[in-house]
């Protein structure tokens, strides 16, 4: 595990700061900002007209339309709000795998810290949830300056262990969140497809936005083994003695299938998905993620 400040790679943050993290969906926010609220408020951006009905606030009556057309229309505005983001980091045993200098957990933590810092700079509220099959650490979202330091402190000293269970953890966490927010799910997602679907469906059902960052080790992505190897499971007692080069092709097929399924599930729920394979790919992956969200925001703007 890196030092407390280690997860906040200054170079990485500098590169990411040129981009904007824009939520695709409108979420409720405490702070005015660049994120649009899901509620039609009364801010600066006009959205649509609708006919006046008794009870409407007359402040929102469009007097110009009344003067020209002698009809009562209420003006509706889109309100720019701050988002509430929760960084959900998987700390199960499978995240301990490492083929190089950093484990998957460390890569995930680095990515989480970078995103937290970026959100905090946008004055968004950022929280942290660390879990395996249970919730191990929880930092409620906050826009305060000290919130970021709190997150860093919680990441420090964590030892991944146990199995992965996402849905139950997120159900518990969502109860503690007052409104819809942005979930940043950072995990290797080595869980069943049913659980993935259930987890993402749950978030979608509750109206949350989500960014899925899947962290894999280069070994897991390329499977470069040759000689006879006894593979031992990190989360359970399963093991397999095999000639890996003879399984490689099929393994990669299965892996691609799982990745494809996750990506498709994310698209189905309208969530962003990005794969990080190793520490060298963190900045590239986050950059892609932010660019991806920026394109979606523009597209959403064009669609009205």
């Amino acid at each position, binding site marked *: 595990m890196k030092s407390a400040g280690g997860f906040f790679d200054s170079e990485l943050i500098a590169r990411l700061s040129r981009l904007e993290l824009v939520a695709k969906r409108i979420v409720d926010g405490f702070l005015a900002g660049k994120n649009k609220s899901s509620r039609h408020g009364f801010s600066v951006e006009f959205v649509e007209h609708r006919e006046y009905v008794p009870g409407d606030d007359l402040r929102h009556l469009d007097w110009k339309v009344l003067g020209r057309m002698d009809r009562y229309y209420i003006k509706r505005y889109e309100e720019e709000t701050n988002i509430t983001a929760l960084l959900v980091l998987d700390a199960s045993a499978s995240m301990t795998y490492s083929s190089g200098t950093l484990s*998957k957990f460390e890569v995930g933590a680095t990515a989480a810290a970078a995103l937290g810092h970026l959100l905090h700079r946008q004055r968004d509220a950022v929280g942290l949830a660390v879990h395996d099959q249970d919730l191990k650490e929880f930092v409620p979202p906050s826009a305060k300056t000290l919130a970021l330091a709190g997150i860093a402190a919680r990441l420090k000293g964590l030892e991944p262990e146990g199995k992965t269970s996402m849905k139950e953890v997120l159900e518990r966490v969502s109860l503690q969140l007052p409104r819809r927010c942005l979930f940043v799910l950072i995990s290797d997602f080595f869980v069943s497809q049913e659980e993935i679907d259930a987890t993402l469906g749950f978030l979608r059902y509750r109206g949350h936005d989500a960014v899925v960052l899947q962290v894999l080790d280069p070994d897991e992505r390329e499977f470069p083994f040759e000689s006879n190897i006894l593979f031992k499971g990190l*989360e359970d007692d*399963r093991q397999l003695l095999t000639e890996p080069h003879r399984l490689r092709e099929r393994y990669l*097929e299965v892996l691609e299938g799982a990745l494809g399924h996750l990506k498709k599930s994310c698209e189905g729920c309208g969530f962003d998905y990005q794969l990080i394979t190793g520490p060298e790919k963190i900045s590239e992956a986050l950059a892609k993620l932010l660019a991806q969200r920026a394109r979606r925001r523009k597209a959403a703007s064009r669609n009205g």
Partner: protein
Amino acid sequence: MFVNPLLLFGLAMVSAPVIIHILNKRRYRVQNWAAMDFLLAAQVSNRRRVKFEDLILLLLRMAIIGFLVMAVARPVLRGLAGWREDSRVVVMDDSFSMEAVSATGKVFDTARESAVSQVQDAMGGSVPVSVWLGSRPESLLGKVEGQVQGGVVTGGSPAGTSAGTLASLAGRDLLDSLGEVATSDLPLDFPRVLRKLIDEAKGSAAPVVRSVVLVSDYRRRDWLEEDGSLADSLEVLFEEIKREDLVDSFNFQFVDVSSGSLDNTAITGFSIESDPVLAGVPVRIAVEVTNYGKEPRVRVEGNVEVGGSDSDEFVARHKIPLPTIESIAPGETVRVEIQHIFTEGGEYPLKAGMTPDRLARDDESVLVVVVRDSMQVALVDGAPSANRFASESGLLTAALSPRGDVPSGVSVRLVEGEIDGKELKDADSVFILNRSRLSPAEQAALGAFARSGGGIAYFLGNKIDVESYLELARPKSNFFRIAAQPDSSSAVGRTKLTPMKPPALFPAVLKEPAPAAALHLDFGENEHPTLELFRGLKNSSFDHVIFRRFFLLEPLPGTEVIARYNDELSTPAVIEGRYASPRADAAAGAGKEPAEDPAETEGRGRIVVFNTTADRDWGDWPTDYTYPILMQEWVRYLSRRYSLGRASQVGDALRLEEKPGVSYRIELPSEDSSSEANPADEVLIGLGESYRPHSAGLFRVGEETASGDTESATSSWYAVRREAGESDLAECGEESLRAALADTGIRFVIGGNVDVDAFRRDQEGEVWRWLALAAGVFLLLELFAAWWFGRKV
């Protein structure tokens, strides 16, 4: 069938890929892994494919090893074009020379070990094997056909009916026979073995390759001519192999078990100077010793043992030392003589011996001396008279057996009446004096007498019927003579009767009596043995003898004129002929002894014509002092040769007289070590049979009558001796043999450690090339499959 069956044990290597696979499974490293779900999912769907691939690769690798091992073992498949059945023919040289002892032991023992090894090797490969003895090729020593399990010859119940069991029993018998066989005293006769094998190959429709392994000491005289070329007897046979397109049917392996040329000295001659030997008359006994080595042999000592005449076994009565031979140069033969007097008539077995060397058996020799009390002469007088000083028989009797204290050694008996077998039974010679004619019965009796070696002398006279004597000189009727079959199937052979024209009983064609005149004898330069006493005084000794009448006559071809009259025509006065068949005549004309017919060599069958009378009717000679001298010499000259008939060479038939109703019981020499070659103690020979001994020594032969009359049965000694040249142990050498065989075109190898089956390399019917090709193809398949299955190549 495999050329190298032992290499099939290499098939165990087929399991190597499986073992390597199992060992590889046990060597691995441990890797903690997160994505076990994906890995297990991949493995589940891959499991059957991987197992299938593993199985294919294992099978391919096992097949590669299997093919390679099979290729090295070199199988020969039946049914392929050009395939030939294997057959091993082991020829073990059991000739006399193999008895030599080299620095490593007896040469024959080495040969036996090599032959046993060859037989076991053949049986191990389930190859039919037969064993021949090189000096006795008339019959097989043994043969094993069929399959022998694993080449292990084990015991078994004779009741077993399986081919393997029978083969095992035959194999055991064969190996037992090999273990017991001993050398003979015969020379190597490989040409006869080869002759049989060629005949067998020519008569066999089945494609068979005979791998002929000759285990021998390869003496030069058996293989090479003087100029170093291959012996003619072998060259002819190898030519025949080539001519008859049998080259592919024979592989020859020449295994030399000798350890180089050995020095050897041998007794090559053992003889008496004169035959017949008379009791009380000194006889010289000669022993010849030859040095066949490369170094001089010095101080050779020896002796002659004289056995008793009255014993059925050899018991030395006298031991006479031979003069010491100071030195015998290489290749030289030295003759030493002793003198001995046999005091009584009878048969005496003799043994000569000298200091033994590396080949001890030829350092002794045997001889049988038949001693006569006197020579028996039968007189047939055509004009008998009571006045013994006037009659022909009377004057001749006085000349041959004069009265006085000193016996002449000649007994005379007058034949009165018809001449028949009984009258001539004990006679050595018969003198026919002025007999007008001879009846057919008398001619038959005289013919039998002459054939048995008796001598006939004619004196002419005025009673002679010219026509009758012309018939004696030109016989018309055929008769049957008995000849031994040369190629008998065993030591005991059958004889057959062959129609022949009878020889002439009178060696000249008479014409008519010549007019009276006073003539003398002229011996010219003739060195006839009967004239030896007169030496250079032959003519002068006879100058005073006057001959007044004689017959004009013409000698038959093949006869010899000993003396002539000094008339204008130089009419023959003494003519010597021989009662012999035309074949014998031809042999005599070519200057060779007719050795084939025992009757012609045992005795002499000499016939002499004195062209005058035995009395004083036609001359003065019967009353001259030269007359008894010359007549006694002629009696000695015409007499049978008794001792010669008792000596024969190993491999030749014993000279046993054909007597109706008489069979011979031959006791084999028990003392002689060579008797191992003939396991039986005695052999019974009936009428029409002959016996050819394989070993040298003294043989005791007893006569048995069909009626079982044992009282009249007699026993005789026979001496059987080795061929002198067999003692020459000079080897021909591998290079010389190779050079001599190079042009024959046969397939051969020389050497003891060479596997004769190496010939199979180039033999059709072998499939090792196909197996090697298959191994190569399977190797390529394995490489491709390993690559295809994702293996590291």
